[in-house]
């Protein structure tokens, strides 16, 4: 049910801060199991005009991050384009970038499959791959119409007796035990009234931050009245390792005798995009970061397609390639709070995110390796557009890594159970916990992690 103010006498098993894909998935999972949940969202029932005011620096400057940070019931599902693809095993353990996720890749597969129907995708095609050439596999990217979580779950949340939904309220302060081992209180401010209200958190109750890629860090960077370290940021790493997914639009072209449409899984009605991805062993051998070569069919009446078809004696097809890839995680890329407050009463963030030379070379290298492979095999030719790689990088609206997951506090903010190191009842879920970005669109993994956290909080899943 929807509530207008913080209930004074309710006792919740879990308080979820943020009602985007992660928060709603977690709340409905817990509510379905009979747990009492308070779901708090700083925005309203629909996206409004107010933005978070983040100031970007580096390759994603100005108001870039605010375009992809939706404060409303449904969160970033309002901005999601519907792409659904999961990481590869390499993305969970890539020696090239020196990052290993603290959870086994295989343990995530059931959660990705459970996440797919929540996003109105078909579980059978989660992780679907088909052979292409040695070194590269074909990886279709289904692009169903995007699921808006406010539309899909709004009525269920309204009808739920287990879940209280409080809109228009921001978490502005946390309190903890003297030893900072547990959160003891949460203070919210209502945007309409400006009234503050504090909710006591008793032993056994849990608090989950599900406020988005930057929002989670923002809450762990809330200033303390005594000037001490922000609660939950004892590691000093909250806000660090900010990542995007670099996109190099039309960075290459491909002419090949392979008609990629024939590789699309027949049982999936689509629509979707074709993509070629390096096989893990090949990627490690060639020091590749996560990278997807997305291929769009163009006219076959193309000079190179006709030339190669003549040379090979069989039809050839022409594709444009957009490279979607991974940033090397760096603690220098970080969001820090400023003294300024945004429209939601929270500190305005300054977000620095700079790609390094290797991130650009990775895109070129992946194209070059595909080109060399196809030349050796007599299967096609690749064109590399350097201007598009080195001078036209864009992003995909994915905000990753600011509360990274890892085995210990000196290298990460949350553990494999998504619990903030050192706290018994404070959790974080969302793309902010990704220790590396891979190339895959993050939404299905965000939802999968929320399902996994739900199992953990219900005592049904042991992540560590």
């Amino acid at each position, binding site marked *: 049910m929807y509530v207008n103010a913080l209930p004074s006498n309710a006792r919740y098993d879990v308080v979820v801060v943020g009602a985007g894909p992660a928060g709603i998935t977690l709340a409905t999972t817990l509510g379905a199991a009979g747990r009492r949940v308070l779901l708090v969202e700083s925005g309203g029932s629909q996206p409004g005009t107010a933005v978070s005011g983040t100031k970007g620096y580096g390759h994603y400057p100005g108001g870039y991050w605010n375009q992809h940070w939706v404060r409303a019931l449904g969160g970033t599902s309002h901005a999601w384009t519907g792409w659904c693809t999961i990481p590869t095993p390499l993305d969970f353990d890539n020696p*090239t970038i*020196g990052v290993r996720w603290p959870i086994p890749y295989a343990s995530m597969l059931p959660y990705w499959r459970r996440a797919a129907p929540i996003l109105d995708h078909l579980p059978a095609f989660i992780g679907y791959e088909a052979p292409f050439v040695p070194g590269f596999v074909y990886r279709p990217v289904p692009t169903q119409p995007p699921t808006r979580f406010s539309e899909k779950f709004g009525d269920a949340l309204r009808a739920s007796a287990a879940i209280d939904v409080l809109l228009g309220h921001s978490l502005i302060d946390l309190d903890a035990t003297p030893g900072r081992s547990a959160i003891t209180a949460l203070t919210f401010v209502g945007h309409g009234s400006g009234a503050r209200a504090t909710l006591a958190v008793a032993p056994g109750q849990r608090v989950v931050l599900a406020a988005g890629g930057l929002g989670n860090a923002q809450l762990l960077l809330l200033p303390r009245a005594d000037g001490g370290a922000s609660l939950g940021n004892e590691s000093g790493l909250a806000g660090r390792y900010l990542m995007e997914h670099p996109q190099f639009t039309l960075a290459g*072209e491909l002419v090949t005798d392979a008609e990629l449409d024939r590789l699309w899984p027949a049982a999936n009605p689509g629509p979707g995009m074709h993509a070629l991805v390096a096989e893990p062993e090949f990627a490690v*051998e*060639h*020091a590749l970061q996560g990278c997807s070569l997305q291929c769009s069919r163009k006219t076959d009446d193309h000079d*190179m397609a006709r*030339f190669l078809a003549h*040379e090979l004696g069989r039809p050839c097809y022409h594709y444009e390639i957009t490279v979607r890839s991974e940033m*090397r995680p*760096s603690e220098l890329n970080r969001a820090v709070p400023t003294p300024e407050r945004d429209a939601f009463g929270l500190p305005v963030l300054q977000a620095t995110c700079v790609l*390094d*030379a*290797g991130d650009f070379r990775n895109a070129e*290298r992946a194209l*070059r*390796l595909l*080109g*060399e492979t196809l*030349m050796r095999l007599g299967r096609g*030719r*690749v*064109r*590399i*557009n*350097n201007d598009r790689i080195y001078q036209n990088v864009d992003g995909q609206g994915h905000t990753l890594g600011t509360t990274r997951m890892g085995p210990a506090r000196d290298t990460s903010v949350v553990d494999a159970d998504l619990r903030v190191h050192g706290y018994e009842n404070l959790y974080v879920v969302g793309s902010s916990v990704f220790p590396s970005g891979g190339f895959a669109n993050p939404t299905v993994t965000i939802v999968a992690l929320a399902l996994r956290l739900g199992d953990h909080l219900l005592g049904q899943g042991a992540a560590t």
Partner: protein
Amino acid sequence: MTAPKRSDGVSRRAIFSIAGAGVALASMATLWRSRGSGAEAAPPGPQDVPIGYADHEGWMVTPAEKASLVAAVAAANPR
């Protein structure tokens, strides 16, 4: 003429051992100075070894293909 005898009492084997240890220490020091941080650029791999392809307007083609393509363009655009 015979070589003068060593008078310091240090055997040849010991000298070789000391020299070997010195070389090992120097090697370790070199390795230590040249070590990476683990977060820097990846070491060059076999992908950085150029293979025999030519560039034709950005396309990776064989040298023979490039010659053929250039000739085709020239034939299509006679002076």
